């Protein structure tokens, strides 16, 4: 039996050709006149000091952590949602309990200020 994903595989290959062709055509017709100022990092005309690769605030990381947890929770809920119609009444209770624990996690992160952008 043929998998539905065959088309996705074909599309991956074909879609990869688009940037290849696009950049190839552009390479043929575009001008190329580099100079040191043009190649320098853009910073509104100010001379750039140091690398951009400096340390950033940790707040971003906390959002990413909360995101990962919720993403995984959502993956668990998807089979529940799909099968819901074929499941008896107790599926409602199980699902609601799961969602409430999820809500508890959100409330905790909220209370502790993990979701505050300060």
């Amino acid at each position, binding site marked *: 039996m043929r998998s539905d994903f065959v088309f996705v595989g074909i599309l991956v290959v074909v*879609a990869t050709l688009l940037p290849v062709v696009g950049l190839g055509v552009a390479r043929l017709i575009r001008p190329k006149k580099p100079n040191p100022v043009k190649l320098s990092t853009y910073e509104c005309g100010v001379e750039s000091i140091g690398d951009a690769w400096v340390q950033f605030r940790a707040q971003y990381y906390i959002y990413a952590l909360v995101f990962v947890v919720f993403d995984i929770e959502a993956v668990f809920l998807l089979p529940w949602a799909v099968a819901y119609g074929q499941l008896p009444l107790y599926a409602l209770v199980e699902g609601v309990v799961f969602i409430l624990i999820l809500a508890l996690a959100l409330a905790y992160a909220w209370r502790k200020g993990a*979701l505050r952008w300060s």
Partner: protein
Amino acid sequence: MDATVSWLINLIPQMTEPVARLIVDLVYAGALAFVAPVVVVVAFTYMERKVIARIQDRVGPNRAGPFGLLQGLADAVKMLTKEDITPQDADRIVYNLAPALAVIGVILVYAVLPVAPGVIGADLNVGVLYVVAVGGIGTMAILMAGWSSNNKYALLSAFRVVAQLISYEIPMIIALLIVVLAAGSMQMGEIIAAQDVPFLFTLPLAFIIFLMATIAEIGRSPFDLLEAESEIVAGFHVEYSGMKFAFFFIGEYMHLFVGAGIATTLFLGGWRGPFLGEVISEASILGVLLGFVYFLIKTVFIVFLMIWIRGTLPRFRIDHLLDFGWKFLVPVGLLGLIAVALVLKLPFLSSSGLMWIGLLVANILVIVVSLAAVSMAARRSRSVALRGVVGADR
């Protein structure tokens, strides 16, 4: 798709079924990867400029061709002939990979977009999940672009965008969960089939959350922090020029169309419409064309809605934006999910065929309750702020 395969086999009898199928797949993939970007970008940049111009009491593009219709073509030529600059401090490989990934990631979403009856690249049984999962490739591309440019603006912007994208992915998944719950499937075809009453009318809450999350995922106003010119210049692609910049741009408009298309499929009944399936068979050529027209009308309407929103609302501040996602959309979405699950198990509704009224009532109830909660919270915080001001005066 199947019809085209059998047509091809009838045309050339020597051809085996897998070969015919492969040819059809290749042609459709080529159309999605090469034709769709050109058509979508030219059509929707034109539409966006014209509509925004009207909103702002301007005329919009009117020089290139009649009514400025060739403006998109002129832009394409310009992009192709612009010099391509790679900053000397950039990380070359990653820098060049990022725009390619950005556009490939968006094209992949088109694989599960049903544009007409029977016309869909792959009707995966995990269709809805696939849409969200493939979205992650774009997030990766943005992070790569921001980092490899070795530019402070680009990196800062990439961080912000990714924080925004991941924050709005959760409400989006919750809205999708509500749809999956009501349809009982993640497959696009079955979700369309489940919409005898479009989900827009039975699950308005999910539609609103999905629309807002989609706008945020595409990074359009009022969620366009990534290109807050006054703060971080042009965003994560500040160092990109020429064709590489064009690929980010193409990706953005491809994303706009597919986002609207998915919203159409999930909430407006996709290609379904009057006469189709009753008077005109879905399998006939006329039926397919009619379905495609219905799909286009609905999708363009949603794109118009997004442009309208862009022309009306000012930009969010980043802390407001993240708060809106996490502290409003997520809890409201979870409440809506519970409400819909509850209504679906009410025995007297499922037996009487009045399910959709029950769902509608539950949705409106959740919307009313959450709006009341927000206005109460706003009033409280305002009075606290006022007391602070009065206190300072004394």
